[in-house]
């Protein structure tokens, strides 16, 4: 249920932007979530709906998932993040703190834990639209 905490962050950041841009009403919020977050989308949508302030009453929330992609800094190998290759506890640990991937995942070519999460990490507020 830490989806709720991330949804709170999205609402807080979107509210700040709406305030700064002088929007009276927000009509659309686009969010991108990295696959490593392993967010339960239903809970996340539910939390967004429950947390939205009056200004967001008619807002559509568009949440897109970005596939995870990793690149080894030691040998250059690129590979996709695959939750199914992890046991339940490791996947759950990465769900809470995606950087914990460096604890449980190694480069499939050279075995190094020194890789970059090139795609699929984090929660990003892509855009918000509204009426001034």
């Amino acid at each position, binding site marked *: *249920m*830490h989806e*709720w*905490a*991330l949804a*709170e*962050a*999205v609402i*807080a*950041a*979107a509210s*700040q*932007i709406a305030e700064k841009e002088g929007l009276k009403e927000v009509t659309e919020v686009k*969010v*991108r979530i990295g696959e490593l977050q392993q967010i339960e989308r239903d809970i996340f949508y539910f*939390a967004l709906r429950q947390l939205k302030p009056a200004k967001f009453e008619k807002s559509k929330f568009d949440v897109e998932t970005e596939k995870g992609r990793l690149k080894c800094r030691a040998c250059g190998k690129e590979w996709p993040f695959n939750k199914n290759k992890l046991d339940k506890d490791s996947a759950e*640990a990465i769900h*809470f*703190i*995606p*950087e*914990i991937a*460096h*604890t*449980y995942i190694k480069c499939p070519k050279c075995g190094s*834990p*020194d890789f970059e*999460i090139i795609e699929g*990490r*984090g*929660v*990003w*507020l*892509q855009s918000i639209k509204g009426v001034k």
Partner: protein
Amino acid sequence: MVDPRTAVINERMKEVARIIAVSSGKGGVGKSLMASTLALTLAKKGCKVGLFDLDFTSPSTHVILGIRDAKPKEDKGLVPAKVYGMEYMSIIHYSGDRATPLRGADFSNALIELLSITKWGKLDFLVIDMPPGIGDATLDLIRLIKNTEFIIVTTPSQLAFETVRKLASLLKELKIQIVGIVENMKMTSNKNVQQQTQKLGLDFLGTIPYDPEVEEAIGDADKLIETAFAKEVQQIALKI
């Protein structure tokens, strides 16, 4: 694109009265022992205390306090584990005893994630055990939590104090509150560190003599709090 997580960090900290980072320019000076013992001391005095181990790549407060199975709970975020009457958060809840090698950007991301999802609740003190130096942890903490105060730990060694001087000068330049400097592992009676602290215009919080019994108390919080080291930390706690 905006990272929304930072927008909620101050909200998470709004009920924390004081945030005290136990820091140093060098490793091995006793920061983690100081942070753990200070948190225990404040909790035993009846304060509401949180202890956050920010040394993600080399966490040790769980070893010092003998924390094994405690886990944060999920409740619309993460509610820290409860240990010895304190709220406790460490990366070891997720990494266990495995190595977690993190480069700077990964460290920052992990820190932002934990700060944005951890619900500390109402605290009198949040004690943070910092990794050594003036790298990502120090810069991120200053950037993300505006009212952080620092306790700086040194040993009598000029090598340690030289790095402390750099840390103190950075914090002063950035107008960050420094509670004071603690001299740990003292084995002589000279007053070099005390005098140099005063020259920096900072408060000298106290001297902690080298205590060989501390090593025996590692892993046992009840034993730790009875050591001569802890008695000195209790005196320092009165000054913060």
